[in-house]
């Protein structure tokens, strides 16, 4: 007459102990919101200046870039925007790969490709901002 015993909800199962789980996904979720909030200002400001203000894209050339990057303010703006946008985008792509790539191997290699190419772009962009030479011509 004894009732079947049922584990309490969310009790640890098998070899999966709670102590081994990290808070990575929580921090990733929080990072998306904080970086997103900062990027709203950085990216929309960038798009407004580059595409709409004062003739928009038609006025952009090497001299225009040289004029902007003469100022540490715009260098810092672009550097922060580069890092936050790339990390925000890479983390978003990681979520999408995890959602849609069903085979373990596919998921693993797609994410490796993502991380390597993202690291390349972040380093390249950083290098370009720090080593820009207005007299290169």
């Amino acid at each position, binding site marked *: 007459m004894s009732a079947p015993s049922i584990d309490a909800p969310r009790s640890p199962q098998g070899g999966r102990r709670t102590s081994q789980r990290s808070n990575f996904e929580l921090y990733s979720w929080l990072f998306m919101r904080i970086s997103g909030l900062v*990027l709203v200002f950085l990216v929309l400001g960038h798009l407004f200046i580059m595409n709409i203000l004062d*003739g928009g894209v*038609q006025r952009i*050339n090497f001299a225009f870039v040289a004029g902007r990057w003469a100022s540490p303010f715009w260098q810092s703006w672009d550097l922060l925007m580069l890092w936050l946008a790339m990390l925000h985008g890479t983390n978003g792509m990681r979520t999408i790969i995890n959602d849609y790539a069903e085979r373990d191997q596919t998921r693993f290699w797609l994410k490796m490709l993502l991380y390597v190419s993202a690291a390349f772009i972040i380093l390249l962009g950083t290098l370009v901002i720090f080593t820009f030479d207005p007299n290169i011509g």
Partner: protein
Amino acid sequence: MATTTPVGTLYRGGEGMWTWVLHRVTGVAVFFFLFVHVLDTALVRVSPEAYDLVIATYKTPIVNLLEVGLVGAVLYHALNGLRVILVDFWSKGPRYQRQMTWTIAAIWLLVMVPGTYFMMIHTVEALFGSTP
């Protein structure tokens, strides 16, 4: 609140699902553009001529139109991202998520109409206008 019964799909449909789908699509599109954009900007380390040559493609009519699409995608992603933040952190966020959806749609239109005008004015004049 009206209760809806899901029929034949995992998702409930409605505004909530479509804002989520659009958020993913615009996010991926902007991410791929970001790769290209860092690469084209890196040409300032090659030579002013190389940079100016590639930037000239940004000023052509078709790419100019794509830029309007890019700005529209980024603007949607930004506005919907703010809505997601409010749904997550504002105690009344979930209750007003539908109203917020229509609010961001209105803001998007209000910004994109004059935005498109200023982004395209040169291209429209070059293609159809009579230069004084």
